[in-house]
């Protein structure tokens, strides 16, 4: 292994595109998990010094393919060539040795270690730490100068922002002499400004001759930064094209296999009377830390209010206190009637009875019980409904199953089997079951958090249409999402949250991502 000091100097300058040598070539990679063919005969060529995007829906096999390249899984068939040489990658150690670095979607950092300790972990030079730490400190200083990767080497990971933690992951790879960097959904947790900074770093790395593979399901990122892009669908590579010669619409069609509406079609809102009034609402968490700081807002009938913000800025607490999961202080009025915030009518059951339906952010923990069947999940929260009771003692399970079947048909849940356990449905179909449960109760106010997180494009389109249809039926909707595109396209008004406060309210027609991004980062707007 060459020492970290030589990093960068040995990297070749960017070569002309035509005839540039290949950094990676995969030939006929196949991988099956039981009966599921995750990757099927995949071949791909990535030129050195380029940024190659891999795009596809959830479950298309992107992550499996990259896990094979990083030695996490062994392919059933196929060959991997690194720099033109046939290379076996049975484990991560071999991948690192072959010059591959990976930045996972969920960072692999030790929270209570310093940046330096994380960087040297597994790449120490000897039995004692002191020399390794000193060397890493020097190398990190060089790297941060070279690529704009500024991080305090002595900071603890748990004190760093998500964007900085990601830089540590990139530094880890570079410290290990990686020439090929794989990033798995890197912008999912970043603010727009942090994402822009990341893209600048990636471009800098590319200019130094590094090869970058970017896995994402966001078309905008592919168009913005990649040179070439491969599209995966159901375990197969459907196309590899030059980014300059394609369009988001074409890529979306390749991903899904049919034309999709990227823009949600909706008429202008016709807001009616005020449904929800929130005044000076505050929530403290179990450590007595104030998470929601005196928020005030109103939503009218026939209107979608979108809450934008980086995850963890009070949106979850807002949903929870409105949905009756958390307790708070302040005033909430629904159709002019004040709701109980701390007493015995402050629970989810009472809220549902008052006409507030809630599609929680964390589908798998708050929205469903994964081991229970679909028909049981359809009953949750509404199990006291009179039509589900046979008599005073017993529930009418037959009626419940029949009702579930109807809901499944209307919401196109696949497979339409009420007896199947929730965990056996895909993320999109799980979400459809929950949305069906909540929307079909015809609530006055729908709280919906991350409606399309982990949901494939086809289902996203469907769920978006249902939300708009509910609005057009004259209902009030509070939408919380970390996906700015979703907020922009669905909302009639956008409120941006930062640090438990609303920084401003914007009209989607007159704002843009930059404006919202600045408020999300807390640098613009005014705490209301």
């Amino acid at each position, binding site marked *: 292994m060459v020492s970290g000091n030589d990093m960068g100097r040995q990297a070749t300058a960017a070569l002309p595109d035509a005839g540039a040598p290949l950094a990676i070539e995969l030939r006929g990679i196949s991988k099956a998990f039981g009966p599921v063919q995750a990757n099927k005969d995949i071949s791909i060529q990535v030129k050195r010094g380029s940024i190659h995007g891999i795009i596809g829906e959830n479950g298309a096999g992107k*992550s*499996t393919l990259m896990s094979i390249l990083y030695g996490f899984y062994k392919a059933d068939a196929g060959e991997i060539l690194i720099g033109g040489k046939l290379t076996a990658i049975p484990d991560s150690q071999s991948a690192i040795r072959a010059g591959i670095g990976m930045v996972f979607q969920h960072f692999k950092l030790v*929270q209570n*270690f310093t940046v330096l300790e994380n960087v040297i972990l*597994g790449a120490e030079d000897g039995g004692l*730490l002191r020399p390794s730490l000193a060397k890493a400190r020097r190398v990190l200083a060089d790297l941060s100068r070279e690529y704009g990767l500024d991080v305090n080497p002595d900071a603890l990971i748990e004190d760093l922002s998500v964007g900085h933690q990601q830089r540590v992951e990139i530094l880890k790879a570079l410290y290990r002499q990686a020439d090929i960097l794989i990033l798995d959904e890197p912008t999912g947790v970043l603010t727009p400004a942090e994402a822009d900074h990341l893209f600048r770093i990636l471009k800098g790395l590319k200019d130094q001759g590094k090869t970058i593979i970017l896995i994402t399901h966001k078309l905008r990122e592919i168009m913005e930064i990649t040179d070439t892009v491969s599209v995966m669908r159901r375990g197969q590579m459907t196309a590899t094209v030059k980014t300059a010669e394609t369009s988001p619409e074409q890529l979306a069609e390749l991903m899904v296999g049919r034309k999709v509406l990227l823009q949600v079609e909706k008429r202008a809102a016709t807001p009616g009377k005020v449904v929800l009034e929130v005044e000076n609402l505050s929530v403290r968490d179990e450590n007595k830390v104030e998470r929601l700081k005196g928020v005030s807002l109103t939503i009218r009938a026939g209107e979608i209010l979108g809450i934008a913000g980086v995850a963890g800025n009070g949106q979850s607490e807002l949903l929870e206190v409105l949905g009756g999961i958390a307790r708070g202080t302040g005033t909430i009025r629904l159709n002019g009637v004040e709701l109980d915030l701390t007493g015995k009518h402050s629970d989810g059951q009472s809220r549902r009875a008052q006409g507030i339906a809630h599609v929680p952010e964390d589908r798998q923990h708050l929205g469903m019980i994964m081991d229970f069947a679909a028909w049981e999940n359809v009953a949750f929260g509404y199990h006291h409904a009179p039509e589900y009771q046979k008599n005073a003692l017993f529930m009418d399970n037959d009626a419940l199953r029949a009702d579930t079947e109807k809901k499944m048909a209307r919401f196109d849940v696949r497979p339409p089997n009420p007896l199947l356990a929730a965990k056996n449905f895909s993320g999109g179909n799980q979400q459809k079951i929950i949305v069906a449960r909540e929307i079909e109760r015809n609530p006055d106010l729908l709280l919906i958090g991350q409606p399309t997180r982990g949901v494939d494009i086809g289902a996203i389109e469907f769920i978006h249409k249902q939300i708009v249809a509910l609005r057009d039926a004259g209902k009030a909707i509070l939408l919380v999402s970390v996906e700015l595109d979703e907020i922009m396209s669905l909302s009639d008004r956008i409120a941006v949250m930062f640090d438990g406060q609303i920084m401003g309210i914007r009209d989607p027609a007159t704002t843009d991502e930059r404006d919202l991004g600045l408020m999300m980062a807390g640098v613009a707007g005014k705490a209301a």
Partner: protein
Amino acid sequence: MDYATLLQILDSTLRLATPLLLACLAGLFSERAGIFDIGLEGKMLMAAMASGAVAALSGSVWLGLCAGIGASLVLAALHGIASITFRGNQLIAGVALNFVASGVTVLIAQRMFGQGGRTPPLTGDARFNPLTLPFAEELRGVPVLGPLYAEVISGHSILVYLALALVPLSWWVLYRTRFGLRLRAVGENPASVDTAGVSVVALRYAAVAITGVLCGLAGAYMATALQAGFGREMTAGRGYIALAALIFAKWRPWAALWATLLFGFFQALALRPDVVEAVLRFKVPVPALDALPYVLTVLVLAGFVGKAIPPRAGGQPYVKER
């Protein structure tokens, strides 16, 4: 209470704290690597029996010590196989081993010696005898410090001094070596170690093996130094007190020393209720003194004395995820 009594109590504090300290450090290595070990008690008990038996048969305390470490390592290996290789529930594996040790030790001792589950009393070289440190007698005349040195510091078996030396050594290994860095990482976020190309399984087995050796020392100390031979259930919950001390010390070596000395002090007081009564001027029941370590640990866990945050991956088997 006069100075001589205080010295006596401090002397027994050190003697009683030693098995706690060894077991606490044993637990520290295991838990820092993410393997909870409630089976410290069982390992100590097994080591006490094996060392007592072998020392009695061979007449050599060193052979006894080796046998104790070996027996403890066998249980540690079983714990490792159950919780690392087969990803079983670490607490249940530990509890099971405690039960095994509790029964098997008496069974073997009874079968071998037929003395009601005890091993024969050890004498001479079959036991760790007190060492007199240099100048202990000469300095006895120095006021205050002289008797302290002669009575409290000097006059213990070699295992006491070894246990004390293990504190800085453990600190150094954990915080200054590559092995320590990886060990702490594997207890916090094993995925970070795995993606760095280092074996999670090997690291955790290494940690469990260290735990085995240290519990072996603790058990052997019980049977061959603190007392002269093995007796039924002779560890008397020390493995659990060591776990309590580990939480009290927030999984740090130096704090482990202070915590076990404190708990050892309580045990020393429990041996001298007359002194406690004389100082406090009312009678404190011995069980109340025995319970003090647990009461303190509950206070720590409840967050009254700072916050005890266990290693984040503790108790969870590592399953590689995508």
